[in-house]
């Protein structure tokens, strides 16, 4: 019995003896086996009954004896935990001007559980306030996505005073509907900062998967573009909680406990509202992009793309008609021209000039005679200088300096025969071409900096010598964004000192300006004086005048003639072909707008102590010097000049030790 245990006690002695037999012999005793099995099954059945009885007891306890307690708990007050969304951080420009704020706005909401006949309410709503079918459709989508019971769902945003009043009058006919005050993102500067600051809009389900879902409980919107997107983590803050008691109708009876949300941090940008306005104004009716950098720290002081859009349209959901307007094929206001890639044209010449000196491909004295056209050995194609379209002749004797201030194409074609495309690539790459070097502008284009490797990867084709010629004047495959051009220009202004362009100036209005160390190595030239030569040539682009036939800076007549300049400016124009023109093209004929050349201008000022770097791209602006140049000057004037005088903080350093011009040979 000790061996077989309690199980066998059920079947008694017969089982016990059979058990002992089974130990000795290996035959099956079917009757005995059936007995063992039945006894075990019986035990199982008893256990089942006992446990079922236990369940029933438990249910009777809960549903009969404790019924009243739970019934009260269910029907009476209920404790709800509701998230309290944090206030989003504000965005300021460098002067403390508000670029993004949170404005109280009145939202009509509905709580499904209390609404009764919802369809009737919605119909009534349509007759007392503006409530379109589109509004209703959006509301129903939001209602479906709702996960927390007794939570309200927005019906319509941005109620006017009159609408609030008429809802109040009809309140008794609209059960479950209430008006809630909410803070809504507002961009007081309208479209001025649209491309730089970006905008906030409803979180999509995919975005919700990528964020901390607990922290975004109660948050309906997320940064979709620009600063609002990049610094979402800083701006958002941490969600708070409120424990409230609600009655069965969903009304809050009392707040039991509250954990305050931690508001998002305010951020201050390097952008300057005056420069931003000046850039928009200077572009006039043209479309284009402007990037202004502070060469002393790489701060982006202006980033303008024209035309722009009103970011406020997106905050409460953009209507179809408004969105259609923003997708206009020609205007493309959503497209950020400051960050998009274009052929840089002749603006690459200062950099290639530096490359020529640095690699020893050219000396400063090396001079060519330019007849206005150029032919590559073994190639029937004739490459013309830009002067050819003006008067069928060339620049005559040209050295590197003149090749820059006169923008001589033939000099660079000649250089291209001695300089490999990969050498050009490697040198230009150090200036940030072909990559995005920004700190916080991930949407900026990488541009295209062609090399043999690039062409093999991108097009699967070998490199042809004629393409090096195109690259030497910033045409062909070469493409760069205004941001890249500004960055590279800043490197000339800084003599190779790298600062990566950044929009964020500081986090918190009272904190220190962020000091960044560039992860990109400064550009060290074998002969540092080469910086001065190129900078001087760029100064000549704007200021070399009265030099006689074919000896003035290309931009001088346009920029200096705008009025007295209390500072000197260095620059380089670029005019990028949109389509190729035949050699016998009649220059006086009207070109349709979409075929007109793009105009570019890169510049920094004051030339001897750079405080501002400006890159201008004017879409179909035709003249780099004539159209883009004056835009750059207007922007620089805004920053440096006050009533015809240099602003006090930008006065040149008296001892001249940092002066660029003084170290130049005459």
């Amino acid at each position, binding site marked *: 019995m*000790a*061996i*077989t*245990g*309690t*199980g066998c006690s059920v079947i008694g002695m017969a089982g016990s003896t059979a*058990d002992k037999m*089974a130990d000795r012999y*290996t*035959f*099956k*005793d079917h009757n*005995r*086996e*059936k007995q*063992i*099995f*039945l006894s*075990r*099954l019986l035990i*199982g*059945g008893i256990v*089942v009954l006992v*446990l*079922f009885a*236990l*369940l*029933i007891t*438990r*249910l*009777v306890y*809960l*549903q*009969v004896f*404790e*019924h009243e*307690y*739970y*019934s009260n*708990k*269910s*029907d009476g007050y209920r*404790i709800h*935990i509701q998230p309290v969304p944090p206030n989003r951080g504000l965005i300021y420009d460098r002067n403390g001007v508000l670029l993004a704020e949170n404005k109280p706005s009145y939202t009509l909401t509905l709580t499904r*559980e209390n609404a009764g006949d919802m369809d009737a309410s919605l119909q009534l709503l349509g007759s007392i306030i503006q409530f379109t079918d589109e509004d209703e459709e959006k509301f129903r989508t939001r209602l479906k996505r709702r*996960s927390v*019971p*007794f939570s309200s769902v927005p019906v319509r945003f941005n109620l006017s005073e009159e609408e609030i009043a008429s809802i109040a009058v009809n309140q008794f006919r609209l059960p479950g509907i209430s008006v809630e005050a909410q803070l809504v993102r507002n961009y007081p500067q309208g479209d001025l900062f649209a491309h730089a600051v970006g905008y906030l809009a409803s979180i999509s389900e995919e975005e919700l998967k990528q964020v901390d879902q607990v922290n975004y409980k109660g948050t309906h919107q997320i940064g979709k573009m620009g600063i609002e997107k990049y610094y979402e983590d800083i701006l958002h803050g941490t969600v708070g909680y409120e424990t409230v008691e609600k009655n069965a109708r969903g009304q809050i009876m009392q707040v039991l406990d509250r954990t305050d949300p931690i508001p998002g941090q305010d951020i201050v940008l390097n952008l300057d509202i005056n420069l931003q306005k000046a850039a928009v104004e200077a572009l006039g009716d043209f479309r284009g992009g402007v990037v202004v950098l502070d060469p002393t720290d790489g701060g982006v002081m202006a980033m303008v793309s024209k035309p722009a859009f009103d970011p406020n349209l997106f905050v409460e959901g953009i209507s179809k008609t408004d969105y259609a307007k923003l997708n206009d094929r020609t205007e493309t206001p959503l497209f950020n021209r400051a960050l998009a890639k274009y052929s840089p044209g002749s603006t690459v010449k200062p950099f290639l000039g530096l490359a020529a000196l640095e690699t020893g491909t050219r000396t400063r004295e090396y001079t060519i005679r330019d007849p206005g056209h150029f032919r590559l050995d073994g190639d029937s194609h004739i490459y013309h200088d830009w002067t050819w379209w003006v008067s069928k002749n060339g620049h005559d004797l040209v050295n590197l300096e003149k090749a820059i201030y006169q923008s001589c194409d033939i000099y660079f074609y000649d250089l291209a025969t001695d300089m490999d495309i990969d050498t050009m690539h490697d040198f230009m790459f150090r200036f940030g071409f072909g990559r995005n070097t920004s700190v916080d502008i991930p949407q900026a284009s990488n541009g295209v900096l062609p090399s043999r490797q690039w062409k093999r990867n991108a097009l699967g084709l070998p490199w042809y010598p004629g393409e090096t010629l195109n690259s030497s004047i910033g045409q062909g495959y070469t493409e760069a964004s205004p941001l890249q051009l500004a960055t590279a220009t800043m490197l000339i202004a800084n003599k190779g000192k790298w600062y990566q362009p950044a929009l964020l100036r500081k986090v918190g209005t009272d904190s220190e300006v962020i000091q960044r160390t560039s992860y990109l190595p400064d550009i060290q030239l074998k002969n540092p004086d080469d910086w001065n030569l190129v900078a001087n040539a760029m100064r000549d682009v704007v200021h070399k005048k009265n030099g006689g036939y074919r000896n003035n800076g290309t931009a001088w007549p346009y920029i200096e003639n705008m009025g007295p300049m209390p500072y000197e400016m260095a620059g380089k124009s670029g005019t990028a072909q949109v389509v190729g023109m035949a050699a016998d093209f009649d220059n006086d004929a009207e070109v349709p707008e979409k075929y007109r050349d793009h105009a570019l201008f890169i510049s920094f000022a004051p030339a001897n102590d750079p405080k501002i770097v400006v890159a201008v791209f004017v879409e179909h602006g035709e003249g780099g010097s004539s159209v883009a140049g004056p835009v750059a000057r207007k922007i620089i004037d805004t920053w440096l000049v006050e009533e015809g005088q240099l602003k006090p903080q930008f006065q040149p350093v008296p001892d001249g030790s940092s002066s660029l011009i003084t170290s130049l040979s005459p």
Partner: protein
Amino acid sequence: MEILEYGRQGTELGYGLEPDRSIWTRLHIDLPLLIALTVMLGFGLMVLYSATDGNMPELERQVALIGLAYVVLFAVAQLEVRTLRQWAPWLYLGGLCLLVAVLVMGDSAKGAQRWLDFPGLPRFQPSEVMKTIVPLTVAGFLARGSMPPKFLNVLGALVILGIPAVLTSMQPDLGTALLIAVAGVFVLLLCGVRWKLVFTALGLAMAAIPALWIFYLQDYQKQRVLTFLDPESEPLGAGWNIIQSKTAIGSGGLYGKGWLNGVQSRLDFLPEGQTDFIVAVLAEEFGLLGMLFLLMLYSVIIGRALYIGAMAQDLFSRLLAGSLALTFFVYVFVNIGMVSGLLPVVGVPLPLVSLGGTSIVSLMLGFGILMSIHTHKVTRLGY
């Protein structure tokens, strides 16, 4: 004495079929069981309709899977018991492969890899099917020997049930792993394994709990146990479900709030209200009477299954039928015990009611086996 089983004996010795067998027996259907199952599934759909708030796509999917489950039931019922027994090792090996596949390439839901997603096939959980395959295999293994099983055979059976249980626990799905193990253990117990062994094993298991707690349990599993011990300690997290389900059950009272009128359960814990916590919806809407009706249906099903086990003619059939009946009871008890706060929260659906097809198909497969056992009997002529 010859070791022959009744089935083989029957054919060889010329036993014939009973002449007046009913149409149901000839169709290999056990009518009482079929009726009870059908009423159960119908009632389950009704509750599910309320719990899903009338979500038709989900319900249609459930109905389609129930349809599939019936097909599986009828198909399995046609098989001879010994055919099932011959298949058992292969089904078992196939199941193991699927479990390994889940670990390697499974689709994860709620932090655990439990699903297999083959293109063109509906998603399913191999561990659910294992709940039926394991007792089948263990019964086949133990039925080769005599009763009570020898120590080595007990060890062999433990290995057979242990491998899939461990694989399932690695997904990690401790609840299902335990249920797979339990199904195998029931076969052992029914087979008459000595109580001394049983109590020794129980003692060892008790002793192993601290080690299990420290080295094996995942944080969320520990949390569930802790929450069970003191639900109020975490009213917003894991304790929320228990508090809410108790409130739902309790507020249902004797008669319930009426179908589709449940407030508490439908509004406050929607995430699990259609699956593991569906009994709370039922208890709130149909009250104690509804729960008693539910338990009565389960009792009928379990009782009939036990009866089929008791009436079975060979060791394999008995072990299998008894184990299936008792395992089914365990599902019911664990689920209702969990939702009413008697047991810690383990992810066990309410059998035949909760949303989720693999479980229903797997259960109906089991009932198909029971019907096969009951209707493929050989009777002596003139007996």
